[in-house]
């Protein structure tokens, strides 16, 4: 924070929380230097279908916030910027991916 400066321990925790909420949606490359656990806010925190990796097999090269649970975005939360529109145009996008940990390669790239 620029205008407020945390003085006691509680304020430091609040500051960290505010920062975490703000920085939650940033590209992984832009994350602050200090490693912090990435907690998905507002979405599923369980491992369910939809995880993707970059060409090196990790998540560092992915765009934001695809390291989150993309499948949950797709099914329960309409977020067309991130996932194909499953209501009208790509209803079968995940039909070959019943188990993401195994079949994630079948979730293909879509070019609208």
């Amino acid at each position, binding site marked *: 924070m620029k*205008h407020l400066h945390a*003085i*006691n321990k509680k304020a430091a925790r609040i500051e960290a929380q505010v920062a975490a909420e703000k920085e939650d949606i940033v590209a992984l490359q832009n994350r602050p230097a200090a490693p912090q656990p990435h907690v998905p806010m507002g979405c599923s925190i369980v491992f369910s279908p939809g995880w993707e990796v970059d060409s090196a097999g990790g998540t560092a090269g992915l765009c934001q916030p695809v390291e989150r649970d993309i499948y949950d975005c797709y099914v329960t939360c309409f977020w067309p910027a991130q996932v194909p529109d499953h209501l009208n145009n790509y209803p079968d996008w995940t039909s070959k991916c019943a188990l993401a940990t195994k079949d994630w390669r079948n979730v293909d790239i879509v070019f609208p």
Partner: protein
Amino acid sequence: MTLSLSGVHTFHGVDVDFAYLVPSGGIVALDGISMAVLKKLEQTSLTKEALVEQMVISGYSAEAAAESIDELESVRAIQVGASIYEPSQPLPDEFPLQSIVLNVTNQCNLSCSYCYEFGEDKIATPEGKKKFMDMETAKASVDYLFNESGDRASVHITFFGGETLMNFPLMKQVVAYARQEAEERGRNVEFSLTTNATLLSTTIVEFLAENGVGVTVSMDGTKEMQDKFRIFANGNGSYDIIRPKVQELIAKHTNRPVGARVTMTSGAMDVRKIYQHLKHELGFHEVAFAPVTTSPDRLYSIGEPGMDSVLRQFSELADEYLEHALRGEHHGFSNVSDTLAELHQGVNKALPCGAGLGMVGVGPSGDIAPCHRFVDSDEHVMGHITTGIDKEKRADFLGRGNIDTKYDCHTCWARPLCAGGCHHEAYVRYGDTGHANLHYCDWIRSWTNKCLEIYGAIAEKNPSFLQHFAERKAA
């Protein structure tokens, strides 16, 4: 929707303004524009656009104003819409015990007129009950403490009375037993003792020193002050008896700080003089002051004008504390250090203290009370050491005492620390442990503000001093 102040209290350190964030207990330093925003919202609530406009008129940039408003909103110093009271988080189902107070006897060799255990406002009903705790009850209490303390690495046993040392033989056995139990269970145990010092002997002092028992001596000040109310049954004062004993204790017991606990009455209100005497003439490490708990009409009650004078003197002594702190030196006014410790953690209490939560009192008969002050009172018994705590009674006690049910407190900025004040004091004053202690609200706010100012000044000028409080447990 307009922006308005949430629970926030601003105060000034040396050169800097600070905000105490009431819903959380956080303390932040404010820059000029943030302070200006808060001051503006103190007068009126405005939309964000109007507020930015006002700040621009005051000479700030619109961008900085918008940023500052967003930051204040993110730490919840301000919010959209009117400020509403947020209920505290529900208590967990289980709260592991941290400490147990053993009232090893309800007998005392002094007859202090103001005593809450024996005096005019007493709530104890010791008739027909045991006068001294026996080892069987004490053992059961120690076992209970270990069993109920969950995975805490360290537990604490406080010996209390009556006059605790009238049952010194039991205390000795308990220390040995608890140490053995702790070792077997791979835990740590600490001890403390409150005493009037009349029965201290060389043997006892050596025992306390060897076992690292923390000692607090109840003592009111100089001879004249001490002998006004802290008297034997025959009316004789106790000062001359305890002075050499206290000095021996302080000289030999060097591994734990020895503290004095002063009960302030109409007969002992000269804070500076009391502190000077106890700290510098007798050599106590720390001195804590508390006004006597009493109905307002007792002779020893301090009364409102008296409390104003106490506040003035507290403030002076607190300034002295600050001077020491800025030089990085210890000062023994523990009312300040205890409050600073809580401010540094940013405590935000749903309940005023740990009574019935992490701490319980046990009477000589084995009855469990929320704390030592309720021991031996039939009305407040919360179970027995052999059968455990009656959860319904505890829920009732904790429910009453919770800040959520003290509606008067909901608009007060000092509530994170005070939470309505002592359950026992409330019972003596209002006949209900869950009543807010409204008779000292102004006093508490003034004192809390003073401590905030001290805290702010230290944070500005000598922040490393606050490290002393970093690991210190909030009282």
